């Protein structure tokens, strides 16, 4: 937290982000935990190698023992010995719509997570704090899905073709025009899969001789697209504008590595909301940098479209900027719209170029019609074109839920990362033993959470990630918060040194007494 606002004239409202560091003893104890786990990992590997224990892992065949070893690197060691012990907290099969509450299939393990079996029972009405259901459009209400069932009966489910052959339907044209209108740009193009949108379109936009400046914590789809393109990739520190400016200046002054020629294109890859940190990109500063140094900007709004902004139009609206400032607007429909797929929007020339040159357009199957109709109805609801204010209410409810949830967690004393307005809330757990204990105990209390550890996060900063939804009621959030309070005291997770008082009602009482 700083005094005043840095670059104060660019930001129209305060930009508060928290990345508090835990006390030093927490890091020491985390390494101690990993050390003990590693020692026991070596012990188990020894026992497996000498035949004292049954081998459940993948090993090479006898004839291959003289070849280069396959399973000796750290990642396989970690998976065998540390991940296997807490594996029951991931890949849990659900058997209902992932709304604010869902049903889980109960699984038990007889041999410490090597194999699972289903008992046949379902755990009903588990509160869902892990699905990316920001606006609550993942619903099974028959009235809401009327148009979707109609389109399903009219078109069926299969497309059986790619966009360039026979896979462009009138539904796609309608959807693309609606997305362009929603975002306030000239044109857009939709794809069947969000991951493939990034990984297949970045190679079409940049190639050899171009420079990609990508944020440290970008998603795998952006990294894969950047690597596939063959351009030079330079990485700047997460959301750090000084680092980005230094890289831009170096790129322009020194040019390409050996020939010293100017770069053909410089493109900056950032995301709207980073899903592991909950931080929002510093868009005004990036746009001013890009205008000064004449670079292009590719903004991946996977988590922020529909979730931030006064009417749900993403980070561009959140900062009060115009969509013409961003060259390529990319987003997905998986998170806030309850469907699947992605889009790229921008100027008409850009989208026309992508229609002919994108790998996804030429080879990948296009979006199926019921899914397109679900996006159309969700977007019409958000824009208010269906005649109700339901869309705006959902966005407001999400904002209220986010602020309430974050405020209460801060007051309780947990360490939370990220911006105060982002619906993604990472709660830091740090120690590997607590990852398993946290997820299991929350499931016992009928709350489903997603915990993340190494290698998706740095090794000392494992976390539980909550995704607040507009469909959560105040009671559900209170249930979750009370459970978190109890569990935080039991597992000793309240490491924050800046928490405000967790019992403000006591101060209310003393104020009344003074009035007497």
């Amino acid at each position, binding site marked *: 937290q700083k005094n005043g606002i840095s670059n104060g004239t660019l930001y129209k409202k305060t930009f508060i982000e928290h990345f508090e560091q835990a006390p030093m003893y927490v890091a020491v104890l985390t390494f101690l935990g990993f050390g003990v786990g590693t020692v*026991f990992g070596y012990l188990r590997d020894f026992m497996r190698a000498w035949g004292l224990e049954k081998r459940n892992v993948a090993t090479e065949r006898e004839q291959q023992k003289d070849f280069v070893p396959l399973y000796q690197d750290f990642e396989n060691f970690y998976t065998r010995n540390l991940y296997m012990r807490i594996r029951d907290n991931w890949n849990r099969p659900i058997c209902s719509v992932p709304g604010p509450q869902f049903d889980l299939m109960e699984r038990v393990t007889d041999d410490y997570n090597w194999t699972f079996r289903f008992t046949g029972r379902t755990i009903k009405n588990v509160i869902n704090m892990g699905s990316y259901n920001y606006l609550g459009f993942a619903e099974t209400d028959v009235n809401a899905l009327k148009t979707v069932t109609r389109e399903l009966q009219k078109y069926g489910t299969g497309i059986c073709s790619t966009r360039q052959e026979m896979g462009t339907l009138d539904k796609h044209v309608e959807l693309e025009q609606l997305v362009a209108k929603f975002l306030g740009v000239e044109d857009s193009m939709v794809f069947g899969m969000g991951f493939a949108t990034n990984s297949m379109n970045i190679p079409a936009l940049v190639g050899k001789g171009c420079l990609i400046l990508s944020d440290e914590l970008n998603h795998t789809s952006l990294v894969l697209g950047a690597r596939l393109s063959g351009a030079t990739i330079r990485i700047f520190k997460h959301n750090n504008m000084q680092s980005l400016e230094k890289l831009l200046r170096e790129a322009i002054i020194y040019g390409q590595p050996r020939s010293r020629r100017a770069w053909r294109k410089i493109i900056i890859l950032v995301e709207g909301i980073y899903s592991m940190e909950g931080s929002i990109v510093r868009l005004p500063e990036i746009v001013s940098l890009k205008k000064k140094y004449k670079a292009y900007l590719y903004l991946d709004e996977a988590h922020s479209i529909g979730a931030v902004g006064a009417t749900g139009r993403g980070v561009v609206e959140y900062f009060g900027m115009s969509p013409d400032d961003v060259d390529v607007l990319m987003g997905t429909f998986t998170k806030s719209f309850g469907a699947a797929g992605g889009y790229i929007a921008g100027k008409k020339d850009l989208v026309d170029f992508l229609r002919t040159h994108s790998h996804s357009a030429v080879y990948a199957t296009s979006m199926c019609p019921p899914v397109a109709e679900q996006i159309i109805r969700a977007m019409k609801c958000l824009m208010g074109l269906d005649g109700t204010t339901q869309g705006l209410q959902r966005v407001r409810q999400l904002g209220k839920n986010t602020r309430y949830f974050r405020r209460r967690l801060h007051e309780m004393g947990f360490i939370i990362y990220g911006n105060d307005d982002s619906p993604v809330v990472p709660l830091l757990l740090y120690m590997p*033993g607590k990852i398993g204990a946290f997820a299991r105990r929350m499931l016992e209390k009928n709350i489903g959470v997603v915990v993340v550890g190494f290698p998706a996060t740095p090794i000392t900063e494992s976390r539980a990630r909550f995704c607040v939804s507009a469909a959560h009621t105040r009671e559900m959030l209170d249930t979750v918060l009370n459970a978190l309070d109890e569990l935080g005291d039991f597992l*000793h997770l309240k490491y924050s040194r800046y928490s405000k008082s967790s019992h403000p009602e006591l101060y209310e009482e003393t104020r009344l007494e003074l009035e007497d």
Partner: protein
Amino acid sequence: MDFKGMKNYLYWLYCQFELITCSYLMEPWEKLLFYTFNITMLVTILYTAYIFIPAHISMALQFFWHFFGNQHENTVSVVK
């Protein structure tokens, strides 16, 4: 004496130890091995401390009193 509260507190401390050292995740025989090792090390350290620390402290005190005067030289006893 608040036995119930004390027992709960000790149980909570034991749970913290289990979580921090990842013994919460271990199979029973691994836990046995780990706790045996830890308790053996703890007992060894405590025993060593019991044997050596009083002798060291009395020798150190004797060394410092030597500077401030020889009053206590007669009371030095031989430690076998």
